[in-house]
């Protein structure tokens, strides 16, 4: 692996701005890396295009209808700015973000071949800051999944062990960053879809406060929960991407932005900061190896001057139940738009309209998406609305109140990110409920709308593995009050420095080529 791709995004951007390295050489190095993808992390790359897709953005050949035409949302396709805090930095984009003229599928066969007429605000902000679109990453279909096995385009392999999942739903983004195929990536998080794959791949994943970044052009799954965020190798890069993407957007009326913006973190200690450990963690289903790493990390926090306090999150255990009512209910409404009329797949030929709708949706959606649409439609149907949707929304209030109470006593709430390390491909596909429980520690923050970051904290052997089994990354989650991202990033930066995960893993890290072969 070349030296260029060893640089963090912040380091590379600084060197490009100072003229020490060439933006085009840096870009070329990453385009070559992305093109060598053996993990199925990418669905489309700037170097190759998608499978069977001509690279019209490179040479202008086979341009789709509308190419080159001005639209209300900007030029088509968007060109990166020459200067800015990310000038010359290529970034991998989860395929849930619309990119003008570039295929966008959200991991679904129903959107195969779809080329959106506009670009998502988050992506526009990155390119306006000088970033380039490196590729579009694989994901669970419509972001529904925790293993990336629900993609309509095949699963993504974990770069630490290709027999295991990278997590989901931003599995392609996490695998691309951890596998040395992208310097940084965008993901989305509805119940853990940035934080859990970041944890399973040994990188940093940040879910900002709901409303910190515009959702315009982010294909909707559960609108009251969806939020986009960065997946990066370190905390500083996460802060850099957030600083560029945050802000109020007139095209998303739920966007708020972060007052005062975001600066690159410099925290080195945790003096005077109070960290709350939920007492419910004691009884939580958690692999022994993950618990050991969590406890060791708590000890490091104390060494850095942080104070550890026990707090209560009595309703968090009901988070999964509330989430798997609210998210499918919103999804069943949002996914009604895939009807075979305006874009995407159409099936059913010349029958009547209803027949076309049913044929299109039955052929276009995969099993998990159908399951969630069914679940959501049931929960919203006459006679069940109060018992399921109404009750789940009240649980959501209680969970948010639990966090409010906790944050009166502490600055942060800390938990493991995921109950286990990366599991085997196919290990949990037969039982939807066991798959859903992966999100046990990440869903409560999503329901409360508060920011949370996952940082790699150590390695552990999978539960039940024999002596000497290869160890896999374990994530540590830190949650903060709404819009306290700067404080969260400072604390995460200090802890990251003390843990020294990347240095400890050294050349065994997949981004160094360690586990890739």
């Amino acid at each position, binding site marked *: 692996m070349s030296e260029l791709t060893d640089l963090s995004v912040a380091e590379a951007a600084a060197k490009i701005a100072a003229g020490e390295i060439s933006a085009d050489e840096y870009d070329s190095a990453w385009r070559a890396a992305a093109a060598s993808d053996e993990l199925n992390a990418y669905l489309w790359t700037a170097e190759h295009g998608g499978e069977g897709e001509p690279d019209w953005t490179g040479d202008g050949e086979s341009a*789709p*209808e*509308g190419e080159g*035409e001005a*639209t*209300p949302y900007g030029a088509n396709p968007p060109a990166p700015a020459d200067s800015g805090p990310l000038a010359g930095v290529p970034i991998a984009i989860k395929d849930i973000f619309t990119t003008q003229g570039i295929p966008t599928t959200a991991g679904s066969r129903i959107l195969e071949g779809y*080329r959106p*007429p*506009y670009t998502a605000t988050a992506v526009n902000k990155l390119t306006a800051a000088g970033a380039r679109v490196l590729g579009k990453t694989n994901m669970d279909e419509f972001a529904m999944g925790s293993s990336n096995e629900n993609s309509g385009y095949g699963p993504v392999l974990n770069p630490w062990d290709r027999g295991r999942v990278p997590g989901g739903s931003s599995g392609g983004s996490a695998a691309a960053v951890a596998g040395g195929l992208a310097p940084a990536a965008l993901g989305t998080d509805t119940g853990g879809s940035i934080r859990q794959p970041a944890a399973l791949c040994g990188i940093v994943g940040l879910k900002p406060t*709901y*409303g910190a970044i515009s959702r315009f052009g982010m294909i909707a799954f559960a609108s*009251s929960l969806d939020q986009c965020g960065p997946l990066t190798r370190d905390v500083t890069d996460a802060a850099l991407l957030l600083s560029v993407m945050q802000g109020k957007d007139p095209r998303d*009326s*739920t966007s*708020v932005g972060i007052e005062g913006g975001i600066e690159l973190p410099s925290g080195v200690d945790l003096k005077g900061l109070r960290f709350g450990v939920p007492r419910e963690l004691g009884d939580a289903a958690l692999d022994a190896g993950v618990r050991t790493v969590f406890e060791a990390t708590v000890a490091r926090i104390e060494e850095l001057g942080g104070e550890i306090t026990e707090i209560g999150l009595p309703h968090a255990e*009901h988070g*999964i139940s*509330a989430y*798997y*009512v609210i998210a499918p209910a919103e999804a069943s409404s949002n996914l*009604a738009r895939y009807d075979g*009329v*305006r*874009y995407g797949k*159409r099936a059913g030929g*010349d029958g*009547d*309209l*209803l*027949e*076309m*709708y*049913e*044929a299109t*949706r*039955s052929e276009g*959606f995969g099993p998990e998406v*159908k*399951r969630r649409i*069914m*679940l959501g*439609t*049931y929960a919203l*149907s006459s006679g069940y609305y109060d*018992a399921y949707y*109404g*009750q789940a929304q*009240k*649980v*959501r*209030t*209680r969970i*948010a109140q639990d966090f409010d109470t906790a944050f009166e006593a502490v600055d942060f709430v800390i938990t493991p990110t995921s109950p286990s390390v990366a599991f085997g491909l196919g290990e949990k596909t037969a*039982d*939807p*409920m066991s798959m*859903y429980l992966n999100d046990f520690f990440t869903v409560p923050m999503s*329901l409360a*709308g508060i920011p949370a970051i996952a940082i790699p904290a150590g390695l552990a052997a999978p539960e039940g593995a024999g002596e000497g089994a290869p160890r896999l990354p374990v994530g540590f989650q830190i949650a903060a009050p*709404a819009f306290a991202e700067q404080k969260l990033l400072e604390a995460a930066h200090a802890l990251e420095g003390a843990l020294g995960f990347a240095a400890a893993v050294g050349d065994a890290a997949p981004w160094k080529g360690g586990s890739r072969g």
Partner: protein
Amino acid sequence: MIDREQVLHVARLARLRLGEAEVETMAGELSGILGHVDRIANLDLEGVEPTSHVVQLENVLRADEPWTSLPPRVALASAPEPYEGAFRAPSPQADVD
């Protein structure tokens, strides 16, 4: 807990057509998930305000400024069956009987 008839009813509402085997699998899986979800049914949440959205925003109206729309050619570029500047779809007539 969820039977065949309910699955077929919900599938009709959701505009999904399920195969014979899918109906059976779906009934079992939905029953399993709802069995877990039902734990919140018995919580006493009388008087608790439901949360539909975490950001407490007043309804905002944007300024009434002229704003262009997508050019028809661009809007139709991804349509499965564009037809003379419009989206073509099968007739809904057959539904009315």
